[in-house]
Every structure is written in C-alpha cells, then in structure tokens.
C-alpha cells in the first residue's frame, strides 16, 4: 500500500521521528527509537535504489499538486545511491553512538543528540530526494542547523568555537545558494529543477543567470569544503563527538558534492557550465591543490582526528577531480568515491572514537603500542587506512582505479600521475599512526585500563571494514549503480522528461 510513497518516506520518517525522540526524554529509549527509524529509512533507500536501477526515475507530487506548481520528489539512480550511503551510515553510527556519546556528551543532553541526528538525517535525505531548487534550500537549512548543534554538543569547549565558525561559514554558503536560486527564479518563473533546466536552456547567455550560477557554485563549494573554502571543516571534525565526525565525514560534505553535480548537470547543463563558462579548469586546479595541500597538512598533524579531517578535504578533491573531467567515466569515478569514501572514513573515525573512548585522547601519543591493547580496533583502522591509500582488494582501490582510467581515457597523463602521487601522501599519514601503534611500546606498560573497545562499537566499525573489503572485490553493485547514475546525469535534461 505504501510502495508509491517510498520517495518521500526517507525524509518524513526521521522528520516525524525527531520530535517524537524529543518527547521520549529517556536516553536508552531515544537511542532505540532513532536507530529503528534510521534503519527503516535505510531499508526504503535500498528498495528505492533497486527500483531506480530497474525502472529509471520515480516522481512523487507532494500534496497531490503536479509540478511545477507543487513540489516534486524525484528519485533517480544518482540520488538513490547517495541516499543509501547516508541512511546506511546513519544507522551504523547510531548503533555505535550509544556507548560513544556516554563518554563524550553530557548525560542529560543525549535526547537532544538523537533528536538533532534525526533532524540532520531528514535534512540530508530531503536535499537528496527533492526535485525542487527551493525545497533543496529548506532541507539544507534543517541539516545545517542540526549539524551545528551536533558539533557543539561535545563536552570539549573548543567544540563551541568550531561550531560557531562552521555556523558562520555554513550560513554564508546557504545564503549564496539562496541568492542564486532567486536569480534563477527571476529569469524562469519556476523552481522545479527539470522545468528550470528546460527554461534556462532557452537563454543563450544571460548575465543574471550566470551570476546565479556563480553564487550557487561558491555557496555549494563552502558547504562541500572545496579548497580554499575548507577552513571551517578541520576544527569542526576535530572537536565534534566521534560519532558525529564519523557521520558527517561520510555524508554532509558528500551530499553537498551531490548538490553541485545536480546544479551543474541537471539544471545548467554540463556543456554550458564546463565548456562555455570554463568551470572545468577551475575545479580541476582546485581539486588537485586540495589533494596535495591537504594530504600534506594531514601528514604533520599530531591529533589523529584533525589528520583524518584534512584527509577528508583531500578526498573531496578526488571527487571534484572526477567531476571536472567532464566525461561519463570521470563523473562515475567521482560518484563511486562518494560511496567508497563513506565506508572508509566512517570506519576510520569510528576507530579513532573507540581509542578516544578507552584512552580519552585523540593525540598520536595515545596510539603508542595500541596494536596489542586494542587489536580489533587497530586492525579496523589498518584496513580502512589501506582503503584510503588505495591498496588493491579494498574499496579505495576501486575508486582510484576508475579515476585513473577516466583520466587516461582523455590522455591526461599528468593528472593520472598526480592522482597516484597523492596516494603516496596518504601512505605517509596513515603509516605514521600504524607505526606507533604496532612498532612502539606503550608509554605506560603497566596501565591495564586500556583494553579493547566495547562490542557495540566494534560491530558497526567492522561492518564498515568488511564492506570496504567486499566492495573492493565484488564491485558489481557499487560500480553498476555509479555507472548508471553518471550515464543518467549525462543525458540532456530534455530526455529526462522535462517537456511539459
């Protein structure tokens, strides 16, 4: 009976769940409820992904008002793929969070944590599913406000400054997007994405629309932490509760990457943005600088969380690099990396959170000799770290492989070379942690309080680690979904059913 409502359910479930969570008021109950809601959203997202792979696109008219007068949810392979990543990671993080936040968040704020998490999930799902440019902005606001709250919940007082900085930058980004959407509306009289695409295509070159595009791209670039607009991200991920870092690193900025893809490919058209406005060169250069600059900065960090945060900015560079190649193969590699990166960064931040849980520190000094004391956690860190580097048989290898292939397809030898050298820097920063964990003696060998992390933290961590290996060997699901998504995005908007 509810199958036709699936496109809207991953948004509505957590959106209703959040206030209910607030009313539950008991930490345990709120945890169970939030996890169930998130898990159910994940199930629906998987069904949506399989359906869209099979049938193409699902459209859902909110309130029964047909688009462009009403708001439309429009789920295709591209957003169903990212939606599955977001809801899946959210569910695992919630399982993990139960014990993790006990240490990191004040007891009477636990309900607020779960409420904010569900709001964030609802916002991210809304951004992904909607087919309406203004509706996207509304959900962006929900997810952003919830994210600032999540970051600030950490008992570490520096989290407040980090969250405030994030709030200021995020609000500027959101305002820029709103200005851009306003300019588009002024010239087209519509907010529906496909309708926008059809009407923007009628203009040859228009200064108002170009300015709108510029505002949107800069606003989204702040949101996705594209170099050099990334300075808000490292402090936020460093001081946020570990569960929050694990969730955000794999989802929030990646949803922003999706937004950029959507505005470029579906609304303005890749041909126009890249070939006539020359955005591909700008994005390509920024992506490469991001990879090298941030990987290098990651190698000199003493705080492992900060290190992973800089690594995230570098990984975003790989995604943007794939997009800026302006080929179906490049876009596919970028999308595939969104999927794979969530698996590895989720696992890494969970491992770091487990170490923080036992040792109370994220400094590299805390990792001395941890290989023996927390063998399962460090093994998880090692495998996910190898995935970041791009070692064969891990998911990270698959995305690097397709990225290099996409570059070589265009005879971009230099870019392919740079992608591979970027991985060398990843060896350095991951290697530093592995070295102290396995080849150094603990600072205090008599300390027996440091033991393996609790099971409830290990299970979600290892599910992600095993997924890293599984999707490194059997690539059929991830690759075919990313491939279908990029082919789908690359067809001209007119073929997507824009003619009304």
């Amino acid at each position, binding site marked *: 009976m509810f199958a036709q409502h699936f496109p*809207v359910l991953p948004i509505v479930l957590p*959106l209703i769940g959040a206030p209910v969570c607030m009313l539950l008021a008991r930490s345990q109950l709120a945890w169970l409820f939030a996890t169930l809601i998130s898990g159910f959203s994940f199930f629906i997202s998987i069904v949506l992904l399989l359906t869209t792979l099979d049938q193409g696109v699902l459209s859902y008219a909110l309130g*029964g008002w047909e688009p462009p007068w009403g708001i439309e949810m429009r789920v295709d392979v591209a957003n169903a793929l990212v939606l599955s990543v977001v809801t899946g990671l959210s569910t695992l993080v919630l399982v993990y969070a139960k014990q993790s936040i006990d240490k990191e968040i004040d007891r009477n704020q636990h309900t607020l944590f779960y409420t904010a998490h569900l709001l964030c999930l609802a916002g991210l799902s809304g951004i992904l599913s909607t087919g309406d440019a203004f509706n996207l902005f509304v959900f962006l606001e929900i997810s952003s406000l919830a994210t600032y709250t999540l970051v600030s919940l950490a008992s570490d007082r520096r989290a407040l400054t980090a969250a405030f900085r994030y709030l200021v930058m995020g609000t500027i980004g959101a305002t820029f997007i709103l200005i851009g959407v306003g300019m588009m509306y002024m010239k087209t009289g519509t907010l529906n994405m496909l309708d926008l695409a059809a009407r923007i295509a009628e203009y040859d070159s228009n200064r108002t629309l170009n300015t709108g595009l510029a505002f949107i791209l800069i606003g989204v670039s702040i949101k996705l932490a594209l170099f050099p607009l990334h300075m808000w991200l490292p402090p936020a991920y460093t001081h946020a509760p570990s569960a929050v870092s694990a969730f955000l690193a794999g989802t929030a900025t990646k949803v922003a990457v999706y937004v950029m893809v959507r505005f470029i490919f579906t609304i303005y058209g890749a041909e126009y943005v890249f070939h006539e406005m020359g955005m591909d060169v700008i994005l390509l250069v920024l992506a490469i600088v991001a990879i090298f600059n941030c990987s290098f900065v990651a190698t000199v960090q003493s705080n492992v969380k900060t290190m992973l945060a800089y690594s995230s900015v570098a990984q975003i560079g790989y995604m943007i690099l794939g997009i800026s190649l302006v080929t179906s193969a490049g876009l596919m590699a970028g999308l595939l990396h969104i999927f794979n990166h969530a698996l590895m960064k989720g696992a890494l931040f969970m491992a770091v959170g487990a170490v923080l849980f036992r040792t109370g520190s994220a400094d590299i000094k805390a990792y001395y000799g941890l290989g023996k004391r927390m063998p399962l956690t460090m093994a998880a860190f090692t495998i996910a770290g190898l995935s970041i580097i791009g070692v064969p048989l891990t998911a990270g290898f698959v995305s690097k492989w397709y990225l290099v292939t996409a570059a070589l397809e265009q005879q971009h030898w230099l870019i392919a070379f740079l992608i591979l050298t970027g991985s060398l820097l990843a060896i350095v920063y991951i290697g530093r942690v592995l070295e102290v964990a396995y080849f150094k003696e603990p600072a205090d060998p008599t300390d027996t309080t440091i033991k393996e992390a609790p099971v409830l933290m290990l299970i979600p961590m290892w599910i992600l680690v095993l997924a890293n290996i599984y999707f490194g060997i059997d690539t059929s699901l991830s690759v075919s979904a990313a491939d279908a998504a990029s082919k789908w995005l690359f067809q001209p908007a007119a073929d997507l059913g824009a003619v009304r």
Partner: protein
Amino acid sequence: MAELIDLVLLGMLAITALRIIFLKDLFAVVMLFGIYSFLSALIFVNLDAVDVAFTEAAVGAGIATVLMLGTLALTGRKEKANSHTALLPLLVVIVTGAALIYGTLDMPPFGDPENPANQHVAPRYIEESPQEVGLPNMVTSVLASYRAFDTLGETAVVFAAAIGVLSLLGLPKQSQATIESGLKSHLVLRVVAKLIIPLILVFALYVQFHGDYGPGGGFQAGVIAAAAIILYALVFGLPLATQVIQPKLLKILASMGVLIYAATGVAGLFFGGNFLDYNVLASDPVAGQHIGIIVIEFGIGVTVFAAILSIFYGFASQAERANIQ
C-alpha cells in the same frame, strides 16, 4: 510616488547599515538592527508583500531584538577592539557586491507583468487557487498547500533552532519565585503590561485564524503570542513566567507542533492521497483543503510559540544566573 518612497527607505537602510558597521556600542547596534528590520518591513509593504512585511516586523524587529539584548546581558555592551586588519573580508565583500550588481544587468524590468516570474507558475496560483484551495489570501494557499512541504521544512527549521539553543543554554528549572527579579518597582510598566498582555494574546489568536483571509498565519501568530509571555517575564520576572508556562511544557509543545503538521500529511496517505494532500481529508476537496490548512497553521503556531519562548527562557535563565553571581 512609490519610487520616491522606495528611494527614501533604501537610503535610510543604507545609512543604518553603515552606522551599524562603525558603531562600537553594541546596545546601539541592536537598536539600529531593529530599525533596519522596520525599514525592510516598510519596503516589503511598498512592494505589496504584506505577509512578508508582517513576519519581518514581528521576527526581525521584535523577537530578534529581544534575543540580541538577551545576549548583550550575558556578554556586555562594548565591542572588543579588533586588532587584525580586515583587508581580505573587505575584498570579499566588494567582489560579492560587484557580482550582485553585475547580476542585475540582465534582470527583467521591475514589476513588468510580462516577466517570467509573473508568467509561468504564478498565474495558476492567482487564477485557480480560489477554486482549488478556496482561500482569499493566495499567499496562504501557496505556503500552506501548493508548497506545504517547504513550510513543513521551515517549521522543522524553527524546531531545529530551538534544539540548538536548548543544547547550548538549557532551560530554567521551574522555581518558586524566591528571588526578586523583573521590574516590579515600576508601577506604570506593571499596570500597562497587565492591560496589554491579554490584548496581545487575543491579537495572536486573530492573526492565527485570520491568516486564511488576510496577512498572517501560524508563524506570525506564534511570535506574537510568545511576545506576550516575554513581556510578562520582563516585567514580572522569569520565575513567575515559568510558573505560567512551564519550561517542560515548551519542549512538549515544540515537538507537538511539528507532529501536528506532519500528522496532517500522513493522514493524507491513509485517505488514499499523497503526503500533504488535503483534498482527500473531506468529501469535498475544498473543504478538505480548509481543514488541512487550519490544522497545519495551528501546528506552525504551536511550534513557533514554543521555540521562541524556550529560546528566550534559555537566554533569560543564563542572564539571571549571571546576575545572582
């Protein structure tokens, strides 16, 4: 004539903004922000956007000013001396401003009926909404029905803001009014407040339920109702106010408002429509629309009222704690 009014208002807006930038006294800055909001509201009225003007006046000039004053009570009213130069920010602002001006070059002429914004989706809202939705105020028709999902999202934004402030400041415990606070020695204020608070509450109800016919609706009504309680707290003290509206109740109300809205949407599913489809709520589609809109507007009002009041409680209890120390 309208151009002349716009010119004067925009000139005053620019002067206010410049003054805000250069003033060091934050109390004066907050007052100027209030003036800025009122000027914006006047411009919106001049643009015939009365609903927006109403919201701007209530939220921007009213509540935002109170909350900023609440912040000043915690932080002090002098701006800290800023040592580093602001060249990069200045450059960013200039480039952004230049881009905005460049963007105006191809903008359609202002107010032209031939503009895309007046030609594409808008005609249906204007011509069909009295029959399809059945409300005289088409702004409410668009907000509460055609684009009801946006409005549900905005209600969630207000809820999220309340969650954020609660997580940072917390809510006051309901106390038995042991400490002397408020402005009890000011007889005139007390008498006037007692007279005016019931009127504000009645006005809030009017705005809430008259939004279908004129400017107004849940957002504005929630803000106005919260303003009544805030006035009460300012004059008679926070402890008494928390006895009238308990902080715990606010948490429940803020959640309930969102739930009322979302439940109306879910009800649509059970009657065989899509999410937020009001047509199916009654045998006659227009009657269904009417029921749906009244219920969701009520949900908005409840959440906005509770969210704004709990944000105020958060600030006020921090300030009281600081005062006691």
